[in-house]
């Protein structure tokens, strides 16, 4: 094993001047520690300050699987990863350029995931190196040897030693020292950082805020005295008012903007934080987050609430979706409007609870036994997570059906600035209609063309009827007559065709014809578009499109596909690799969107998919594009 890393303890140029910053369009920095040491808070503040300065930002959490894993293990790395850009940042990017690690084991965890660029700059807490515990000293040595196989620039930082000058418990405070270092490296506005610290610790005492300010200055000062590099990602301030939040917060705010007043849920990663946000907000807005006894009950409570008034919603992830299945069928059969948010994670079964995947698509559309037509849509950005809730509530109400909103762990925990929404009264659900029902009007008075009918709400005089999951006629009378089931099935299905008629074909990113069209859905949009940009710079004839409505599928797809030689989906779900043992064109299992598109368009749609528990990196998508461009398809 060769030691190739350069060690720097002092970085000043010979004449003592501050180094000239390296100019970058975008840069990715991460902060990792053991759980509870505050790396996440440090990263969040750094991301927020950068956003406030006008940088594009995409922040993701680095989350260990356990709440409090044992200290100093690679799997315990906890923190934040912040990608900064001069322009808007639409995805988490590729490898990390700068990493600050509170111990060498957390660092190893990131190294082993190939998260770090080959030439990454590493700032590592150095006090483990000469630790009294021999095991720790040995672990440090082994780690450095392993890290030495790459061209990392490793800088040892005496964080512990310096922080002890200000505080006694370095587990609470080192993060602010690190924040100070990062602020110097990226030339952040120190006053903004101070303000943000004061905001984050607003519920703590002034003394704590002061200590944190002191640590911030200490980190800044140490970096200024000792580091020989700086990076400049020049911000481009915009006049538009921006907000910054993660996808789960956007879902919660969107639900309030949609006028919804009841969310029923059962705790499940990575969906739960929506309810944290909402629980707090509903206390002020008037509303209820009902934590049900199980996932099934959460669906039932939401359906009961919707049946009796304003559209309610439930939030879950894959395993919870499986449990809610029967209730979704009931809502569809009784034409009770309902919004379901599925924050997708890796599956099947418990799978990868904290990691992103897009594997629930087919289950979301087809997972209910019997013919159960309903709407499935997928926001592609954090901004869209907000607006999707308003749209979903409206569609659910207008069509009297279930709308499933598929987000994922990438959107849920990613933090990104976006143009501030301008909420309107018109977005909000009106109070439930309590006017008398005219004589003779029935609860399922299906318009024979559209399948649409007026929903009766308890409290409306003369509207009394019994909603039932059994086959029923226009009056909701239980009916086993074959004609009635045929007719009512077509009425429920027709509503999707009506929605389809109102949708526009998806926009194409890039040229409207060419060699290859990359098709994605949901959160991969930003990474795909970045990969397409790079591919076009290389001279490849590639375009992409992102599909928001998956059931019904957006119109015009076949016509668009036919203008390209090849069409390929890029998804975070499983598909067989062409050429793998036993895999043939006859038995290859495709990505989930690819299945849908093949069936819908009869175009031979190929796919490139990965299930490695992380968002797709644009660089990897680019490699797949290049490979398809060279090979000319799956062959």
């Amino acid at each position, binding site marked *: 094993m060769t030691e190739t890393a350069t060690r720097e303890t002092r970085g000043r140029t010979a004449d003592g001047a501050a180094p000239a910053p390296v100019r970058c369009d975008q840069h990715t920095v991460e902060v990792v520690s053991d759980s509870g040491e505050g790396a996440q808070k440090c990263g969040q503040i750094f991301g927020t300050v950068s956003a406030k300065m006008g940088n594009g930002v995409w922040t993701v959490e680095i989350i260990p699987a356990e709440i409090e894993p044992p200290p100093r293990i690679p799997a315990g790395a906890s923190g934040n990863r912040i990608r900064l850009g001069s322009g808007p940042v639409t995805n988490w990017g590729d490898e990390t350029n700068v990493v600050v690690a509170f111990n060498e084991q957390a660092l190893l965890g990131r190294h082993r995931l190939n998260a770090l660029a080959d030439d990454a700059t590493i700032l590592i807490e150095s006090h483990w190196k000469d630790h009294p515990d021999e095991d720790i000293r040995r672990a440090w040595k082994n780690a450095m040897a392993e890290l030495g196989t790459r061209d990392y620039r490793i800088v040892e930082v005496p964080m512990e030693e310096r922080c002890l000058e200000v505080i006694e418990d370095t587990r609470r405070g080192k993060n602010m020292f690190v924040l100070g270092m990062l602020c110097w490296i990226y030339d952040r506005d120190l006053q903004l950082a101070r303000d943000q610290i004061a905001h984050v610790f607003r519920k703590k005492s002034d003394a704590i805020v002061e200590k944190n300010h002191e640590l911030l200055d200490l980190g800044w000062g140490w970096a200024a005295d000792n580091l020989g590099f700086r990076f400049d990602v020049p911000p481009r301030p915009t006049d538009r008012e921006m907000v910054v939040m993660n996808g789960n917060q956007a879902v919660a705010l969107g639900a309030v903007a949609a006028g919804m*007043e009841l969310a029923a849920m059962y705790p499940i990663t990575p969906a739960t934080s929506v309810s944290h946000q909402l629980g707090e907000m509903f206390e002020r807005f008037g509303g209820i987050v*009902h934590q*049900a*006894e199980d996932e099934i*009950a959460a669906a039932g409570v939401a*359906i009961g*609430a919707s049946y009796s008034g304003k559209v309610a919603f439930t939030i879950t992830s894959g395993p919870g979706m499986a449990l809610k299945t029967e209730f979704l069928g009931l809502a569809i059969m009784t034409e009770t409007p309902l919004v379901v948010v599925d924050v997708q994670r890796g599956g099947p079964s418990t799978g990868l609870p904290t990691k992103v995947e897009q594997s629930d698509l087919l289950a979301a559309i087809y997972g209910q036994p019997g013919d159960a037509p309903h709407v499935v849509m997928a926001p592609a950005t954090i901004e869209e997570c907000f607006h999707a809730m308003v749209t979903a509530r409206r569609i659910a109400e207008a069509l009297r059906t279930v709308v499933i909103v598929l987000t994922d762990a990438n959107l849920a925990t990613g933090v990104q600035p976006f143009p501030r929404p301008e909420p309107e009264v018109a977005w909000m659900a009106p109070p439930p209609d309590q006017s008398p029902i005219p004589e003779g009007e029935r609860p399922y008075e299906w318009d024979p063309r559209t399948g649409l009918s007026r929903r009766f709400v*308890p409290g409306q005089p003369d*509207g009394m009827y019994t909603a039932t*999951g059994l086959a029923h006629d226009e009056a909701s009378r239980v009916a086993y007559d074959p004609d009635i089931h045929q007719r009512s099935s077509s009425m429920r299905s027709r509503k999707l065709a009506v929605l389809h008629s109102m949708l526009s074909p998806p926009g194409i990113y890039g040229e409207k014809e060419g060699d290859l069209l990359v098709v994605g859905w949901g959160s991969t949009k930003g990474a795909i578009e970045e990969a397409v940009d790079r591919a076009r710079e290389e001279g490849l004839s590639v375009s992409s499109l992102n599909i928001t409505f998956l059931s019904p599928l957006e119109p015009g797809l076949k016509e668009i596909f036919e203008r390209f030689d090849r069409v390929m989906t890029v998804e975070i779900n499983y598909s067989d690799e062409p050429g793998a043992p036993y895999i043939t064109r006859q038995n290859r299992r495709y990505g989930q969107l690819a299945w849908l598109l093949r069936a819908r368009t009869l175009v031979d749609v190929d796919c490139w998919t990965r299930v490695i528990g992380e968002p797709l990196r644009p660089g990897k998508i680019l490699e797949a594009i290049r490979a398809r461009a060279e090979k000319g398809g799956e062959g």
Partner: protein
Amino acid sequence: MTMAGCSLLRSATGDERVFGLADYESAIARWCPGCGDHSVLSSTQRLLSEEQLAPETTVFVSGIGCSSRFPHYVRTYGFHGIHGRALPIATGIKLHRPELDVFVVMGDGDCVSIGAGHWIHATRYNIDMVALLLDNNIYGLTKMQTSPTTPQGYASNTQPRGSYLPALNPLEATLGITNASFVAQTAEWIPAHLFATLREAYRHRGFSFVRILQRCPKYTAPLFEEGVKNPDVTELLIHDDGILLPGLEDVYEHQTWHDPKDMDAARRLAEEDGRVRLGVFFRDESRPRYEEMRQLPAMAAEERVDLLEKELDRYAV
């Protein structure tokens, strides 16, 4: 019952209607002849009429099973849901619309088997509604499979050598759940007692759990024969705060003065010892009601937009 059979009357203002039995009648019940559900339906309609519940603000929620057809036969709003899940639907209705009167009708398979988790939690939520367990000790709709309340040894299609385990006792179980506030038992073959129990349940503010012993002439007739024919096996729990039916003394000699406030006594009385005890076992109106604690004043859309703008300020950069 003077209003029985009279049609919906409306005054000029529309708020002085009088509801008779006929106002609560809907489709003709399709239960088997001799099924105890018919009796429960009649008593319930009588209750609706006596309490003058407006049909449009009353909701019957059910699961799946013979008894779960109930909402179709009552002219109110109804939700005939899925097996075991009536209580979550009812919970959602009451959380959103606490002013509605909600009745939940469940069978033994529904409530104490597939929906058992919801039964425990609905009892604890103590939301103001009436939950009726129509317990015929068998799965009837699916044609005679053992239910949790089938007596040990009683043969069915799934356990032809007889039910293997002692029957689950829904009263004991409910009385064991934290925050239970009303637990009663009645029998559909004693209409006066049934009606009186339903009325107590309706008037109780909280989750009123009523187990109704209910004959299934098709599959469990032998199990109820003794109880119906021989008053000696029945013991009435009577109290000023429970049910007092002077007319029944002559028939049912075994009567026990039981104060529904006394949980220890209630639990003892609920134990199986060969006696069929009918009456209010427990009642405590002081227990917290979830839907009351969760009520927040509604906010006008304009106010919500203003508040949302303030909320967005917190995320502004």
